[in-house]
């Protein structure tokens, strides 16, 4: 039987996962100096509203593309998905491949020309032009509120991670990160945020890449890792409730049956389910995620990822800053090329943890239950810091920690810059001060960034008082993504869509999404109706909720549009396919064209999915 070295019963709960040396602190301090220095340096180039909100619309395809990806590559993403890879195996890779690549290519090749041709400042700005103030206002207010709350959740999450990983006090992390980020965002807005995001992108890769390199050397390649994972699954008793319960009891932990009952730790035990991406998706009960291929392909690939990558202004704003249409189309394509390989620094460390660690990691509820009994267990989300400590000594550890901090900062700055733009251009200007001058809007952008950061910090303190707020905020954000995609894509592709159709469709889809979430919250058994299977797990609920709300948006929008009068064709110029003369990209050789690289990426995308089938 397993002797449970992982329980570390004698360890103090406050003991940090890694121990940083002075040289690591020097590396972290240099990072903060650089990010603040960039803000100070760029302030002189930020003289107009366009400079502050759109980075002057002068970014090259590479810079816009890397910032586009970096704004999404937050530390919560790194830690969370590495943990998910430990929990669910290679299935987590779908959030990087089918859950990203097609949507990013759609944004670049199909949707960007309309965003770019309309010369709008934001996604709600596009809705204003296409559907009018009601739809735009609904979208802008929801987005601004959720963005600022998400920023607060990010700040708290960073502080909590730094406390667990390094033992830093929560207050210190909250204020140091907020002040540093606040300085560079308030000084130079999106321009400074984009500069820092490119820098952060490089640091995230160079700080994280050593883990998979050394891990794969230790495992002996992919074949060796698959053998190690199979061995550890048996050793830890994953999929075997009797072994896990006995192991916990042997170490003095009374297993909380209610907590363990629905845990993925008791899911499928066959090793191949952790190393195959598609072959186990035939049925909900055949994989540790409790989902099927319909949920992945249609819920994740066709709705959630399309919604996030094409309508979430946090990421789309980076692409809108491109200097010309070719760059705006190329930026998401470049982002997709890099996104395809992000699993190397996120998913692979999780799989390596599952195969190589002699310490078992657990779902958070089990860790919490053990903590109440005075024992220390580590959760899935700790896998990345544990792997960092395993392979990285002084200096390299500092680089790895800097990568995590950089990830958090890019996520927070993304939220704040998007909030400032939507607040200033889609709420303040149209609803409160239509005659505001450019200079006034620039000042409003700076003030709203500063106030947004303070509200975020206040949210972080609220989350500190009650952790469940974090779950609600994250759930709230997911309510709007799928319905908004339905509204935007119908508006772009179907000229018959009317302003009433857009508004009522968006409202119905959002309300349905909230309703389904509340239904499952109050009555967990309702999940089987939403996901169409009694074996569905919570991950499937998100996918199917998105799918149904999207379908409802389309139905309501189409029915109401057909019953109401649409705008004349000339008013839809620049906004809708078939009514818009897309400006030419210019004469470029084949290797400089977005369509060529989109084709290359599509081929690699298909090959990767087949290889890991």
């Amino acid at each position, binding site marked *: 039987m397993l002797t449970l070295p992982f329980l570390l019963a004698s360890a103090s709960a406050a003991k940090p996962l890694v121990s940083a040396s002075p040289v690591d602190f020097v590396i972290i301090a240099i990072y903060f100096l650089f990010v603040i220095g960039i803000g100070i340096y760029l302030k002189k180039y930020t003289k107009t509203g366009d400079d502050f909100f759109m980075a002057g619309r002068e970014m090259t395809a590479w810079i816009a593309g890397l910032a586009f990806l970096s704004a999404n590559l937050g530390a919560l993403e790194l830690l969370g998905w590495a943990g998910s890879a430990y929990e669910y195996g290679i299935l987590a890779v779908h959030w990087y491949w089918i859950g990203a690549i097609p949507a990013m290519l759609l944004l670049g090749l199909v949707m960007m020309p309309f965003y770019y041709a309309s010369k709008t400042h934001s996604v709600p700005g596009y809705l204003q032009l296409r559907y009018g103030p009601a739809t735009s206002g609904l979208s802008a207010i929801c987005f601004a509120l959720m963005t600022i709350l998400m920023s607060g959740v990010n700040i708290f999450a960073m502080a909590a991670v730094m406390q667990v990983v390094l033992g830093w006090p929560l207050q210190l992390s909250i204020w140091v990160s907020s002040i540093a980020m606040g300085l560079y965002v308030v000084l130079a807005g999106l321009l400074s945020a984009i500069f820092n995001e490119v820098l952060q992108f490089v640091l995230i890769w160079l700080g994280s890449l050593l883990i998979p390199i050394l891990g794969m*050397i230790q495992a002996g390649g992919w074949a060796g890792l698959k053998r190690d994972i199979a061995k550890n699954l048996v050793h830890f008793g994953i999929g075997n409730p009797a072994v896990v319960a006995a192991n916990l009891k042997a170490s003095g932990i009374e297993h909380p049956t209610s907590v363990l009952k629905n845990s993925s730790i008791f899911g499928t035990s066959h090793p191949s389910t952790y190393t195959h991406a598609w072959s186990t998706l035939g049925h909900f009960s055949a994989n540790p995620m409790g989902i099927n291929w319909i949920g992945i392909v249609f819920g994740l690939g066709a709705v959630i990822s399309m919604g996030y990558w094409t309508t979430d202004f946090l990421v789309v704003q980076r692409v809108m800053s491109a200097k010309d249409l070719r760059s705006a189309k190329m930026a998401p394509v470049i982002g997709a090329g890099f996104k395809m390989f992000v699993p190397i620094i996120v998913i692979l460390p999780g799989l390596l943890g599952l195969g190589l660690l002699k310490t078992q990691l657990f779902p958070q509820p089990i860790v919490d239950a053990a903590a109440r009994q005075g024992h220390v267990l580590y959760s899935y989300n700790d896998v990345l810091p544990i792997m960092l400590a395993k392979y990285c*000594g002084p200096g390299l550890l500092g680089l790895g920690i800097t990568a995590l901090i950089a990830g958090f900062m890019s996520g927070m700055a993304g939220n704040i810059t998007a909030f400032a733009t939507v607040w200033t251009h889609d709420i303040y200007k149209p609803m409160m001060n239509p005659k505001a001058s450019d200079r006034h809007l620039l000042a409003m952008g700076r003030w709203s960034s500063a106030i947004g950061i303070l509200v975020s910090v206040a949210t972080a303190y609220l989350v500190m008082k009650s952790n469940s707020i974090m779950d609600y905020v994250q759930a709230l954000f997911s309510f709007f993504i799928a319905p908004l995609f339905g509204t935007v894509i119908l508006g772009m592709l179907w000229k018959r869509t009317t302003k009433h159709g857009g508004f009522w469709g968006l409202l119905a889809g959002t309300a349905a999404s909230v309703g389904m979430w509340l239904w499952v919250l109050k009555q967990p058994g309702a999940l089987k109706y939403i996901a169409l299977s009694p074996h569905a797990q919570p991950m499937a609920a998100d996918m199917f909720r998105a799918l149904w709300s999207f379908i409802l948006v389309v139905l309501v929008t189409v029915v109401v549009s057909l019953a109401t009068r649409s705008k004349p064709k000339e008013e839809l110029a620049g906004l809708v396919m078939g009514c818009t003369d897309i400006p030419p990209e210019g004469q470029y050789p084949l290797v400089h064209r977005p369509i060529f690289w989109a084709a290359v990426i599509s081929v690699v995308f298909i090959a990767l999915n087949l290889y890991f089938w």
Partner: protein
Amino acid sequence: MTKHANSIWFLIGLQLLIYGAIVEGVGLWELANPPTHKTALAYLHPAIWWGALLLAMGLFYTIRFRPARTLKD
């Protein structure tokens, strides 16, 4: 905009150069004074070759995108 684009790559190069020097220095120090607590695969001296990689990348970007050259362009 070329001015901005070049300055960002220059700054990235500068930071990699500084980080490379620090990591390389730590790697060489540990080669001469092996630490008592060793990380997994420490015998491969990852700090030395990773530091060298950062230094090489840092040198390339600082030279290729140095401000003097940008102004001349």
